[in-house]
C-alpha cells in the first residue's frame, strides 16, 4: 500500500509499465523498494565493491582519465554491467540497473555506518563511552539494536515527560516551577544525570535511552504540521531545562564539541560600544557573541539585545537563546526530512508501534465500538448534553432551535453521537425527530444517506471516526450560517464571554484566564480549563494536571460521565 503510493508518485512519470529504470544513469535518490534475497544482498554488494576498488587502484597507479575509463569499463562489464538503452533487451537492462541501484544502497549503508562511527564518534576520548555529555543535539540516529519492548517503553516514557511540560505550562507555572516539576518527572521516567566521574555505565544507559526515545518520537511525530509543532515546542523546552541544569564546564564543552561557536567581541570593541551595549556590571566581564539578528529572534523580540547594522550583540548570559535557536532550527529541519522519509518506512513491526505512539497524542479514535455502558438511545441525548463539550452543546442547541443543521454540523455531531454509543438505528431516529420541519420523503432522500454514510453503511463503507479537536479546529472553517467548529476557535470574543457566563462562570479571573488562552490560540487548553472550572476541579492538585488536555470531544464526554459516576459512588 505504502510502497505503491510511493511508486505512483515518484515513478509515476515512467511511460511504460514495468519499466522502472529509464536510464543507465541514476542519482540514487530513492532507496530500493523491492525485495532482495540474502544472496543478492551479498553478491551485489561485493560486485560493486570490486568496481570501486578497481577505481581506487587505477587512481593509485596514476593512470590518465582515459586509461582509468577503459580499465573500469572492462571491470564493470565483468562485475556490474550497465548498458545504454538500445530499444532491445528490455529485461536485461532492467536487471542490470536494479543491481546497480541496490548495490549502491547496500554499500551506502555499509560505508556510512563505519565511517560515521569513526568520524563522528571519533572524538570521544574514552573507549566505550559513546555519550560524553548529558546534552545531545540528536544529530545521528541510533546505530545499535533496539528491542521491541525498549522501543515502546522508551518512547512512552519520553512522552510522559513532554506531556508533563505541556501540563505545567497549562497550569501557568513560572519557569522556575516548571523546571522543578519536570526534573522530578524526568527522574522518574527519563533520568539523565550529569557527569560526575562515577557510575559510568548507568549514565550511558540513561543517555542511550534519551537518544533512542528522541528518535522514535521524532519519527512518530513527524507526520503532519500539527504533530511536528507539538513535538518541536516541548522538545525545545526540555532541552532548555536540561541545558540550564547542566554544569557550565560541561555546557561549554558540549557546545565546543558540537562546533557551535559564535564570533566574540574583542575587549577594545566592547569598550567602544560600552554605552550601547548597556550591560549591568555583573555581566561586563563575560564574552559577547556577535550573530546575525535572524539567529537571535527571541532576544530581538524582547528588545533584550543590542542591534547594530543587522547584527545582534548577545551577552553570554543570554547564550541559551542562541543554543536553543540552533537546536530548534536543526530539529525543525530534521522533522521535515523525517516526514519526507516516512512513507518509505516500511517495517511492519515498527509502523504499528509508531501509529500507536502518536495516537497517545491524537487520542483514541472513539469509534463507539467499545462503549461498554450499554447503548445510548435517541431520547437520552437531551439529558446527556451537559456532558458534551461546548462545540457539541452549541450544535445541539442550534439543532433544537432551528430544527436543522448544515452539512458539516451534521457530520460533526453525528460522528460524535456515534462515539458516545448511539447505534445507527438510534441515530436515524434522533435525526428524524430533530428535523421536525422536514417531511419524511425529503429526509430519506437528502439526509438519511449521509447519516448512514457516517456509520460506514453507504458509499465507501468506511467507518468514519468521530472528529478530534485538531480536525474540528483546523478544517472546514464555518461560514456565517454554520454552527460546526470549535467555539473556542470560532466564536467572537464577546460571544465566548457570554457563553462562559451562561455556563455559570462568573469569576472574572477565570473568564480572563480562558480568554487569554483563546487569544494565544490555545483552544484545547482553554477547553480543558473550561472543563475544570465548570466541574470545580481547578487547582485541587497543584502539581499534576487535573485533567489531561482535551484532544477529542468524545474524550471530554468520557471524562465528564466518568466523573459524575465516581461522585455518585461517594
Amino acid at each position, binding site marked *: 500500500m505504502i510502497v505503491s503510493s510511493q511508486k505512483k508518485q515518484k515513478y509515476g512519470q515512467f511511460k511504460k509499465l514495468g519499466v522502472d529504470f529509464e536510464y543507465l544513469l541514476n542519482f540514487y535518490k530513492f532507496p530500493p523498494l523491492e525485495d532482495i534475497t540474502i544472496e543478492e544482498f551479498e553478491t551485489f554488494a561485493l560486485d560493486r565493491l570490486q568496481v570501486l576498488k578497481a577505481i581506487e587502484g587505477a587512481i593509485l597507479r596514476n593512470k590518465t582519465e582515459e586509461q582509468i575509463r577503459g580499465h573500469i569499463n572492462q571491470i564493470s562489464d565483468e562485475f556490474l554491467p550497465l548498458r545504454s538503452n538500445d530499444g532491445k533487451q528490455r529485461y536485461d537492462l532492467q536487471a542490470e540497473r536494479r543491481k546497480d541501484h541496490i548495490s549502491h544502497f547496500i554499500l551506502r549503508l555499509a560505508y556510512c555506518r563505519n565511517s560515521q562511527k569513526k568520524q563522528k564518534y571519533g572524538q570521544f576520548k574514552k573507549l566505550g563511552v559513546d555519550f560524553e555529555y548529558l546534552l545531545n543535539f540528536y544529530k545521528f540516529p541510533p546505530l545499535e539494536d533496539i528491542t521491541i519492548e525498549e522501543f515502546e517503553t522508551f518512547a512512552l516514557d519520553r512522552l510522559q515527560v513532554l506531556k508533563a511540560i505541556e501540563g505545567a505550562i497549562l497550569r501557568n507555572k513560572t519557569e522556575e516551577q516548571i523546571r522543578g516539576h519536570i526534573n522530578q518527572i524526568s527522574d522518574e521516567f527519563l533520568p539523565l544525570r550529569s557527569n560526575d566521574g562515577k557510575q559510568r555505565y548507568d549514565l550511558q544507559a540513561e543517555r542511550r535511552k534519551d537518544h533512542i526515545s528522541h528518535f522514535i518520537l521524532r519519527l512518530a511525530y513527524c507526520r503532519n*504540521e*500539527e504533530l511536528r509543532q507539538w513535538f518541536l515546542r516541548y522538545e525545545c523546552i526540555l532541552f532548555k531545562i536540561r541545558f540550564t541544569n547542566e554544569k557550565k564546564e560541561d555546557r561549554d564543552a558540549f557546545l565546543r564539541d558540537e562546533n557551535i561557536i559564535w564570533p566574540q567581541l574583542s575587549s577594545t570593541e566592547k569598550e567602544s560600544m560600552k554605552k550601547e551595549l548597556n550591560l549591568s556590571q555583573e555581566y561586563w566581564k563575560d564574552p559577547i557573541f556577535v550573530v546575525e539578528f535572524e539567529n537571535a529572534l527571541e532576544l530581538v523580540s524582547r528588545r533584550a539585545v543590542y542591534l547594530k547594522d543587522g547584527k545582534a550583540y548577545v551577552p553570554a548570559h543570554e547564550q541559551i537563546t542562541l543554543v536553543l535557536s540552533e537546536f530548534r532550527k536543526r530539529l525543525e529541519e530534521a522533522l521535515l526530512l523525517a516526514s519526507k522519509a516516512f512513507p518509505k518506512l516500511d517495517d511492519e513491526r515498527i509502523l504499528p508501534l509508531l501509529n500507536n505512539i502518536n495516537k497517545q497524542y491524537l487520542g483514541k479514535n472513539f469509534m463507539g465500538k467499545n462503549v461498554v455502558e450499554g447503548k445510548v438511545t435517541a431520547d437520552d441525548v437531551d439529558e446527556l448534553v451537559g456532558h458534551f463539550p461546548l462545540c457539541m452543546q452549541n450544535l445541539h442547541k442550534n439543532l433544537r432551535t432551528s430544527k436543522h443543521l448544515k452539512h458539516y454540523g451534521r457530520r460533526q455531531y453525528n460522528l460524535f453521537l456515534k462515539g458516545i454509543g448511539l447505534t445507527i438505528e438510534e441515530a436515524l431516529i434522533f435525526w428524524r425527530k430533530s428535523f421536525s420541519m422536514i417531511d419524511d420523503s425529503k429526509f430519506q432522500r437528502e439526509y438519511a444517506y449521509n447519516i448512514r454514510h457516517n456509520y460506514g453503511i453507504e458509499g465507501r463503507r468506511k467507518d468514519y471516526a468521530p472528529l478530534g479537536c485538531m480536525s474540528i479546529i483546523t478544517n472546514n472553517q464555518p461560514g456565517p450560517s454554520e454552527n460546526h467548529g470549535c467555539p473556542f476557535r470560532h466564536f467572537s470574543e464577546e460571544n465566548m464571554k457570554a457563553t462562559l457566563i451562561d455556563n455559570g462562570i462568573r469569576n472574572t479571573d477565570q473568564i480572563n484566564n480562558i480568554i487569554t488562552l483563546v487569544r494565544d490560540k490555545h483552544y484545547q487548553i482553554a477547553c480543558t480549563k473550561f472543563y475544570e472550572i465548570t466541574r470545580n476541579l481547578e487547582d485541587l492538585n497543584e502539581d499534576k494536571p487535573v485533567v489531561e488536555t482535551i484532544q477529542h470531544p468524545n474524550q471530554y464526554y468520557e471524562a465528564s460521565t466518568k466523573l459524575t459516576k465516581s461522585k455518585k459512588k461517594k
Partner: protein
Amino acid sequence: MSLQSENDAQTSLMEEIEEMEEIVETEELEDIEDTEKNTKEELEADFWRNPSRTILQAGHESQDFIPDTSELLRFFYTKLFPYKIYAEWLNYSKEIDKKFINREFSFQLSNEAVIRHLSFNNPDELKAEIVKQCPLKIDIGAVYSAKPKDKRSLRPSAYKPVEKELVFDIDLTDYDDIRTCYKGGDICLKCWQFMTVAIKILDVALREDFGFKHLLWIYSGRRGVHCWICDERARKLNNDERKAIVSYLEVIKGGAQQHKKVYLYKNMHSSLKRSLVIIEDYFEQIVLEDQDVLKDEQNWTKVLNCIPDEGLRKELNKKWLQLPLKPSIDKWHDLKSEISHYKNKKNQWRLDSSISEIMFQYLYPRLDDKVTTQINHLLKSPFCVHPKTERVCVPISPDNCENFDPLKVPTLTTLYRQLNETNNTASDKSGTKRIHHEYEKCSLKSYMKYFENFVEGIMKEIREKNREASEMSMEF
C-alpha cells in the same frame, strides 16, 4: 492488528494532511480579506458609487471642463503612471524574471469587486491590464513560487510565498484616542506631525539597528504612510523574523480599554533611548501646543491615567481644575515637578519613568502589525490614487519629511489641469526642451525623480554585487 487497517490509517492520514494544508492556505487569505474590509475602505469605496462627488467639485470654479473620475483615472493610468521604473523596481533587475512574473497583484474595481491573484508576464501586460480595468486601487502582494494567476490549478505545496519587501503601515486612525484636532476621516497639518515623528523614529531604527538601506516611504493618499523596505535581506525574511522585528519596534501595547499603553524597563534599550531623543524634540510642539492634550479635563484625564499613583493624579487634577485655562505646557511642567517632588520612595522609579512613558504613548509610532508580519499580506501600491482624496500615493523623503504636506500632494484634477495647460503652451514654443515622460510636465515630477533615484540606488547595489560575484568566480 491487520496490515490493511494500518494502511488505511496511513492513507487517511495523508489525505488529512493534504486537506489541512489546503485549509490553512485559504484561511490565511480570508484573514487578509477581512482586514481589507475595514470600514475606512468601505467608506471610500462607497464614495465611488455616489455620483454627486462633492469634494471634487468644491474648490474649483468649474469653468473648464473636468472629466468624471473614471475618466480621470484612465487619464492618469495612460499618461502618468510610471510603469517602466515600477516594473524595474518590483523585478530588482532590468531583465524581467520570476520576481516580476510571480508577483501577486490585486485590483479593486468597485466596492464589491476585488480581483486577487493577478500576475503578469511582463510590464506591458501589466500596463495593458491596468489601463483596461482602471482599478480604483492596486495592491501588491508577495512573490510566489509560481504564477499567482495559476494558483487554482496548483497543489498548495507548489504555491508558497517566497519573498516580499518588509512593509509597515501607519495610519492616523490609530491615533484617534490622542489627537484632539479634527477627528474622523480627515487630517490637518497638525495631526500629520504624528506621521512625521513616526517616520523619523522608524527610519533610523530600521537603518541603524537592522542595517536596511533601501526604505521607500509612501504617502498612503489619505491619513497614513507606508514603508517598503527593499533590501534583499528584508525581502527574504520569513514570518517569524518579521514578527520579531515588529515586536522589537513596538512599544505601544493594549487596546482601547487600556489607558496606559507603555511600560518601560529600568535599563532602557539603546534603541528606545534614541527614540526618546527624537520624541523630546517634538513633544512640546506637537503634543502640548498643537494637540493641546492637557486643555480640558476630559483630555488631561487621559494623560493622568498614565501615572501609577492615585494621590498624585488627584492632586494634579485638583490643581488644574482651579486653573483650567492654563496652557498645556505649563500643566506639563506642573506634572513633572509634582512627580519629582513627590515623596514616595518605593514607587519613585516607576513614577519618574511615567513621564517618558507618557511621551512615548503620545508620539511613538503605532504600527499595524498584521500588515508587517505576514509575508503574503497585500499592501496598496505606490502611485495609486486614493479614491476619496484623489491624491496620488507619492514617495516621502525621510530626511525631509517634516516639510511634507499631505494636503499639497497633487490630485487627479490638478494633474489633469497641469498637463492640459502645459500641452497648450508647449505647442506654441515647441522643441525648447526634450520631454521624456508626461509626468515631467506636472507637479508629479519631483516625486517621480525621487522614485527613479531610489530604484537606481537599488540597481546600483545589485550591479555591484553581481560584479563582485563574477570577479570571485573568475578567480577560481
